[in-house]
């Protein structure tokens, strides 16, 4: 006997505990199975691209903080790189190193939240995310030391950084670097080989390599699908060509690979941090830049490997003090393109963890 069933529509979000902000998935379910899924967003749209057109180049830096608010330093860096490329402004050696240190610390902090909330979505009730928030606090303490802020740093400037690091920063960073590997081991001991986690995430939400390339995925999601593509290596910006590090990649492109890639990237970031700290030179932290920057007419695309993927800023200048066009290539928005392909056929519980494994930040998706 075949029981006649009919699909029903469930709106998951915008107010749902696991949508990482105000994301809405309009899902069509057949029992527990997802038949169709349509992402709906825009609940956090603040028109940052338009706002930036009415501000000076320096005045746009706080706006970039509010894009991916879990990785403000990376946003600052990408924007400053784009302006420097546009206006041809040099950056002092010391500032480059400070930027790398901040960007890598930020990567660890962002991945901690990503992995923690992914495991939380899997149903590991709060424990992993609280462990990871504990370590993120220490990174935030470091950031607070340099710029007085814990979330929206507004630290980098065109042509350097806003101020030099204080004396107590390096010892604190050293202590953090010594302790962090042990903590990463702790996370792995907790859940890496857990049977339920393996059953829940292995083979779930596979993003095949071809699809990943075709849908312009980037960041850990891209690398988990087996593409060895990291802009720090592929197109080294700042001084990344001076550091030794590996690019961790996954083999299948499932949720588990994405989780492992993030954990391994944290270890690589620690390597970079160690090298950067040892090589940190003395000197200026900011080149001589006028208050009102007037770049020559033209356009520039500055991109970095942000924690969530390729973050790019496309700036067009008309030789005024404000950008003529300010476009953000938001990695998480574009990573969502393949979301439907990854979800259809899986169950409601998988939908949550597939979505969690992509690691989005609504501030960046909606802008």
């Amino acid at each position, binding site marked *: 006997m075949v029981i006649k069933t009919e699909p029903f529509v469930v709106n998951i979000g915008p107010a749902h505990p696991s949508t990482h902000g105000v994301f809405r998935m309009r899902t069509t379910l057949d029992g527990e199975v997802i038949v169709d899924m349509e992402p709906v967003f825009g609940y956090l749209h603040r028109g940052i691209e338009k706002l930036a057109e009415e501000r000076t180049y320096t005045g746009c830096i706080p706006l970039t903080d509010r894009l991916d608010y879990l990785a403000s330093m990376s946003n600052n860096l990408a924007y400053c790189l784009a302006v420097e490329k546009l206006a041809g402004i040099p950056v002092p050696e010391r500032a480059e190193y400070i930027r790398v240190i901040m960007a890598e610390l930020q990567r660890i902090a962002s991945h901690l939240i990503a992995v923690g909330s992914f495991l939380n979505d899997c*149903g590991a009730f709060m424990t992993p995310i609280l462990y990871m928030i504990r370590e993120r606090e220490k990174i935030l303490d470091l950031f607070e030391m340099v710029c007085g802020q814990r979330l929206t740093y507004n630290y980098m400037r065109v042509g350097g950084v806003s101020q030099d690091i204080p004396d107590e920063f390096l010892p604190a960073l050293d202590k953090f670097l010594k302790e962090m590997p042990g903590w990463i081991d702790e996370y792995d001991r907790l859940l890496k080989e857990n049977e339920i986690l393996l059953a829940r995430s292995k083979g779930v939400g596979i993003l095949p390599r071809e699809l990943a390339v075709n849908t312009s995925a980037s960041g850990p999601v891209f690398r988990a699908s087996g593409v060895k593509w990291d802009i720090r290596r592929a197109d080294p910006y700042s001084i990344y060509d001076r550091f030794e590090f590996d690019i961790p990649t996954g083999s299948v492109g499932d949720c588990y690979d994405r989780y492992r890639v993030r954990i391994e990237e944290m270890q690589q970031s620690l390597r970079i941090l160690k090298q950067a700290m040892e090589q940190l030179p003395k000197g200026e932290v900011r080149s001589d830049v006028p208050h009102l920057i007037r770049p020559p007419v033209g356009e520039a695309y500055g991109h970095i490997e942000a924690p969530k993927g390729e973050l790019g800023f496309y700036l067009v200048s008309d030789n005024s003090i404000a950008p003529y066009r300010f476009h953000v290539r938001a990695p998480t928005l574009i990573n969502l393109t393949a979301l439907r392909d990854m979800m259809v056929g899986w169950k409601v519980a998988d939908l949550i963890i597939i979505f969690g494994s992509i690691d989005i930040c609504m501030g960046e998706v909606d802008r």
Partner: protein
Amino acid sequence: MTMAALPPDWPGGFWLHWGVFVVVIFVFVMATIMGFIWFERRAMAIMQARLGPNRAGPFGVLQPVADGIKVMLKEDIVPAKGDKVVHWLAPVVAFVPALMIFAVVPFQGGAILADLNIGILYIVAISSVTTVGVFMAGWASNNKYSLLGAMRQVASVVSYEIPVVLSIVGVVLLAGSLSMQQIVMAQDIPFILLQPLGFLLFFIGALAEINRAPFDLMEADSEIVAGFHTEYSGMKFALFYLVEYGEALAISAIVTTLFLGGWRGPLLLPWLWFLIKVILVFFVIVWIRTTVPRIRIDQLMALAWKFLFPLALINLIITAVEILVWPAGSLWVLVPINIAVMIVLVLLWSRFFKLGWGKVEV
């Protein structure tokens, strides 16, 4: 240690016995639930590197009281398109059976409301009624999340009832009685040693039946918001909350009675032993909750039907054979044999079966 049992009609007279015990059980259950709520929150907080409730009263022990007062003062919201009568009735239907279980739980020798000769059967029957309340709640809320949660609950209880009952039968065979009192009296060796596999199956199945992690699918907060009680607030929500902890307490008490030797133990007072064992079992439940991720619905079903059910059957057969062929009095010899059997069977079976079916073509 004397096994001095209280007379069956303690403290004298049928009605006095009932009156005293109903009050005692109600107070005990309520107080222990309050304690458990505090205990779980504190224990979880310590495991998660945070403090937990620590403001209301010493060490925050009054936090559940404060929460209770708050929740009672909250507005009671009924969904406009919900079924109001069923919505109102559901928490009651869920709560009463959770309380009724304690009628046959022996707190110490003779300290039992009703020493039914079918005690354990009564528990199995009563504890399933809660599901009806949960399903009523999910249906009456007219909310898709609630309905999903309620359906999951029904599915899981229907599947897990079977391995749970089968693993209880092993205990009943050993004790030779269905009475909770008699089962405790029969445990010169705690049945956890004689029935290690049965204990494991019962504990896993019981976790699924009371919907504690990793089987807390019906109220999976990261998936379906709060499951069946999404649309509940105020006192009705508090009742569901009490059901959750009441069932956890009941399962702890049943595990204690069936497998850990009930109130029996050296030196300390019997009821104190009972309480210690109950808290210990509850601690394990909390510990599991803080550690492992949640299982998926198809994996939940697969675990019940492919793993727990066949193993429970095998366990039952082995136990029956052992009782038939083994001379009474030398049960200690069975302990290492049964532990070895458990390890072999679990390892063997985990190779056979696969958790869930994965992706479905649509």
